[in-house]
């Protein structure tokens, strides 16, 4: 059985818009995946949904589909993305293709205080959509790696207890989920390769769950043992990597250089935990910030003066101060002569967040010599508080729906 070629065209909501077209036109693929969700993104989408209940999905994915859906259908490339965010059905209904979507992750009824509450679902509902002939699969909160595990499981007909195969595909998914972070983006040894415009990664997955990480010929960046190692280390904890599909043992992964990239093999898996992780975001209040530039002599005293003045004006509740001594004595440029005093306010009162910047700017002619700030005052923005919860997996009803 030949390998299944799975590409990635997005590592976050806001990633390179043209990546989808680059991946479709750059060479052969069977499946194209995209990750659009992060803890913070769920909060952003939650605020979108508050304003308009028909939103709550990644709007950039719609733009990519307007540009590329016909091309993908024409090439027979299946699209699997978590761009549905908080509203997978809403997004699925906007697409003109045979679309399946995954639902059941929304647990707001169980966590009524939360703005968003989403269980991390796994690969099997994605696999079910594909088995039923979906050309596009749209999910909400599934684990990033499940976007790769689902298509591989469907293609090879894996069983739910094929732990090593599922673990191998999870590793492939983990390498792919952050897009160009696998191909030289954000890479410590960036001076050794050309990362001007890194290509997006591809995993060629074999029936046994092992894979070759590669990218289309002629694209920038590099796939080496080092670039892949860097991405394997991203956002992990203990070597037993817990997911809804399988527990993946990162201390069993074997990496080997290959003429077209890096072979990943040897990965062992074991049964997943009995609970699913839930991403909870609640509104925490409002935040605002300012940065005062303190130039030249008496930096500490200048900082003390402006602190005293701002506290006098609005009180010290919720303020966090940081003085960054970026200055140096007898400097040859004005910027090198300057320290930065950051102040942030977090408050439950939006009026106080607004008063903060007004009070800051009212000091402009009444404070330390050389007073200036790095940005104009703003009204402040709401901020979220993230927390994880865990629920028994049999209490979550994940469902694959074909349109």
């Amino acid at each position, binding site marked *: 059985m030949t390998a299944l070629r799975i590409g990635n065209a997005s590592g976050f909501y806001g990633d390179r818009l043209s990546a989808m077209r680059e991946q479709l036109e750059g060479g052969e693929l069977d499946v194209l995946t995209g990750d659009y969700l992060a*803890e913070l993104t769920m909060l952003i989408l939650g605020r979108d949904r508050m304003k308009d209940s028909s939103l709550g999905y990644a709007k950039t994915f719609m733009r990519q589909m307007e540009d590329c859906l016909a091309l993908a259908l024409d090439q027979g490339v299946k699209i699997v993305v978590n761009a549905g965010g908080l509203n997978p059905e809403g997004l699925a209904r906007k697409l003109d293709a045979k679309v399946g979507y995954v639902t059941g992750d929304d647990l707001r009824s169980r966590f009524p205080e939360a703005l968003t509450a989403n269980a991390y679902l796994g690969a099997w509902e994605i696999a079910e959509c594909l088995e039923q002939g979906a050309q596009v699969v749209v999910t909400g909160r599934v684990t990033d790696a499940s976007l790769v595990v689902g298509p591989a499981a469907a293609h090879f007909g894996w069983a739910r207890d094929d732990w090593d195969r599922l673990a191998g595909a999870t590793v492939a998914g983990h390498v792919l989920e952050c897009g160009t*972070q696998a191909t030289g983006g954000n890479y*410590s040894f960036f001076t050794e390769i050309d990362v001007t415009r890194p290509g997006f990664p591809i995993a060629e997955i074999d029936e046994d769950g092992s894979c070759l990480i590669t990218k289309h010929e002629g694209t920038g960046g590099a796939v080496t043992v*080092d670039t892949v190692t860097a991405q*394997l280390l991203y956002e992990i*904890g203990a070597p037993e990597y817990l997911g809804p599909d399988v527990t993946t043992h990162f201390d069993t992964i074997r990496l080997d250089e290959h003429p077209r990239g890096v072979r990943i093999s040897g990965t062992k898996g074991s049964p997943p935990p009995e609970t699913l992780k839930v991403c909870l975001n609640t509104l*925490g209040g409002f935040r605002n910030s300012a940065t005062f530039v303190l130039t030249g002599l008496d930096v500490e005293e200048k900082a003390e003066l402006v602190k005293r003045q701002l506290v006098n004006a609005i009180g010290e509740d919720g303020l966090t101060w940081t003085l960054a001594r970026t200055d140096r004595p007898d400097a040859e440029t004005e910027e090198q002569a300057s320290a930065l005093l950051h102040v942030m306010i977090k408050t439950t009162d939006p009026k106080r967040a607004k008063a903060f910047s007004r009070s800051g700017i009212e000091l402009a002619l009444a404070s330390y010599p050389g007073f200036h700030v790095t940005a104009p005052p703003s009204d402040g923005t709401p901020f*979220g508080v*993230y927390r994880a919860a865990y629920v028994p997996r049999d209490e979550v009803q994940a469902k694959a729906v074909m349109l």
Partner: protein
Amino acid sequence: MKRPLGTIAGARSGDKGGDANLGVWVRSDAAYEWLNGFLTVEKLKELLPEAGEVSRYELPNLRALNFVLHGLLGDGVASSTRFDPQAKALGEWLRSREAEIPEELL
């Protein structure tokens, strides 16, 4: 020789809720043997004094160590008042810290 750790080690860091993770890897078995002995939790806290509670994991197959810095980011990215609230550059900070690196590894 006293050199920045990043002369021989790569790193990648990021956020998981209020925790930060920091993976460090090297490129030869000899360098891993040294790193594994050198970069203890105590040494990491000495190099990154902002760290509080730290968990350490060994991944010899990747010639890597993974650290979880608990609570570094407060209530998570959107709420953190910390400089670099997603801990994206934590690894590059560590790489810039100087360490006594055996000459044969340089």
